[in-house]
């Protein structure tokens, strides 16, 4: 529904990557979606002056190596990434984890359900919101 925009999806699972790709191609066919399967390479990608800055970063919390929370903390510690909109998604419903994500600087914390149709709806809700409000989000964060 929104015209152009770039989403960077940090997700290591091939299955989830496919599900996100499928969901976003249905709900937001005109969005460009870039996948980063390895969390340790994300910071370099975001700091690369030749690469476009994403409008939104979707971050899976549960990844091997540098996990989502550590990556988020590292991103926020870097001035160039401090104003990125970061949506964290997780299959956990732990309130402690939610609090930790907010403390680390997540803009959104969304629950990733197993059911694909529901996942698509949740993802669409979050992406719609942030693509519509991207300017406001940054102004407020700044």
């Amino acid at each position, binding site marked *: 529904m929104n015209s152009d925009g770039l989403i960077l999806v940090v997700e290591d699972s091939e299955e989830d990557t496919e599900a996100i790709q499928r969901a976003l191609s*249905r709900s937001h066919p005109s969005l460009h979606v870039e996948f980063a399967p390895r969390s340790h390479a994300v910071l370099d990608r975001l700091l690369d002056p030749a690469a476009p800055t994403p409008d939104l970063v979707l971050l899976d919390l549960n990844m091997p190596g540098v996990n989502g929370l550590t990556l988020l903390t590292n991103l926020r510690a870097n001035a160039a990434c401090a104003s990125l909109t970061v949506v964290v998604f997780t299959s956990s419903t732990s309130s402690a984890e939610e609090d930790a994500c907010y403390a680390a600087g997540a*803009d959104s914390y969304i629950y990733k359900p197993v059911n694909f*149709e529901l996942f698509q709806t949740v993802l669409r809700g979050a992406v719609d919101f942030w693509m519509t409000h991207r300017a406001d989000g940054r102004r*407020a964060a700044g």
Partner: protein
Amino acid sequence: MVDDTWSSALHRLWQAASRAEEVSALADDVYAPLLATPGVHLVVGTRWEDPQILRYMRALRAGSDSPVITATARSVPEAAVREPGDEPVVTRIPVAGLDDAGWPEAELLRRTPEATFVVCTFRLDHRGWASLGVGVDASADVAAVEGRLAQAVDVIVACHTGIIQRGREARRGADDALLAEASLQMDSSLDVEETLRRVARIAVPAVADGALVHLLRSEGPEFVSATHVAVRQQRALEEIGRENLWLAALLARRSEDEDTVFLSGPELDGSPFADTAEATEATEATEADGDGDGARPVAAEADRHSTVISISTLRARGRVVGSITFVYQRPEARLPGSAFLRSLATRAALSIDNALLYELRRHAVLSLQEHLLPSQLPVTDQWDLSASYEVGDPMLDVGGDFYDAVPRPDGSIALLIGDVCGRGAEAAALTGLARHTLRTLLEQGTDPGTALSRLNRALRQERASRFLTAVVATLAPQADGTALLTTCSAGHPSPLVLRSDGTVSEVLTGGLLLGVLDDVSYESHEERIGPDDTVVLFTDGLTESREAGGAFFESILPVRLAALRGFDAAHIAESLTQQAKAYRASGQDDIALLVARWTGVPPGADLLPHPLQLVKAAR
């Protein structure tokens, strides 16, 4: 040959239509083949809403690979007459005769005023229509062109209908999945706040962008939880939920049987959800008046779609438990239906009600449990007494452990501890009977063995359907500074004695558990304890606490107790309880402990029982 090409193109179009997620994805497969038709030099399509708003125009001209797209919405009142009925309509109009006022395509066709515009108008859904037309010159077989247009439109309409249908099915599937997931999540917690958090977390952002939950208390709605897809707005929502007078008044006004209500536009005037300008002014005005509630308007900060809110009553088992307010900052087409919200609210209400009932019940269980135990233990200079009671799993019913300490006429003191098999009201009744029977008998000076036999008889006479275990010990101060420990056990774990030198020994007693046979007698075991020796009585919740590897706390209890040498009774009771809790990976039995340390003060130094003081028992 020409027909074969068109047939192939039509085949490709059908294939594309079956995959398309939106009808505009078909454009390339429609425009190019039509443009390849002999005599066609321009293909132009338009899309309309309500019925004169032009949303979109796309044109592909001969000799060009790139379409020209105009996607700026504008009103074309004169085009309203072009709106088709249910069936597609194909017309042919000389370009020179096109009226610019109702035909935005005219400006593209003007280069060839001698041409004819062959156009098919068709309905896409109840809100919109479209047109697909071609500019043809005199060489074209117009009838054949009309046929192709009609065929292409058939595919487009079928594709659009399929997309809408699939969208409806997907939405229904997502709604069903959401209700199922919500039930699952909410049912997995019996904690009220956790349940409320889960209600909101499931719904945001799938159903709405924000959610507020209020519980109905006797004094009115009480804010309990807020969630928003954007964390920053979540803080603002929390403030609104807690302090906003407009929302508080709105919720207080709602009648019990009111259905879900949606509010938008002017209905939100004066609220923190009002659209930007008004909301800002309203907030500034109320703050200037000095009675503003400080909540920042959510809509004012980030609003591209008008804010809509819905309020659903949370009703469970015939009573209202609260309300859930959803905040939407999304297109109207993506608002949930009332029936869906009702369904979600019903599930949420049941979960919340279950959690509330559980909380009440848990409170009742803990309260009853406390009344089954002594509120105070006697304290004299001779005895350092303390007890600990740890409820294993408050989700379960009242446990059956009991203990007491009773001063006796001869200056001794009696300790008792027991465990009724099972939980619940019946176990609680037996617990009360057992403790008070033993207490009364021991208080009158009855010896431990007789006391247990008489309790056994009482249980048999009452036809009690449960068994119980107990141990009774009397401690009689002796002239030499020791105390005589007389112990009788009815199938209960043996007490331990922690000597002042740190050694730990088991008081070896044995006897049949209570309530099984009619006539049972109990043998007494006697031994001396010295100053600073400590007697520890406990229930099997302590010894049967089990670690992940399968070992019982019983195996390390003597060592752990020995390490507590020199500590007072309260510390020993509390420490052992906490150690067992930390140790156990399984086993959720209650843990009761009664600890008595003999101070060594000889008889006569304290005139028992009259100077007895009572202190609150440790629990």
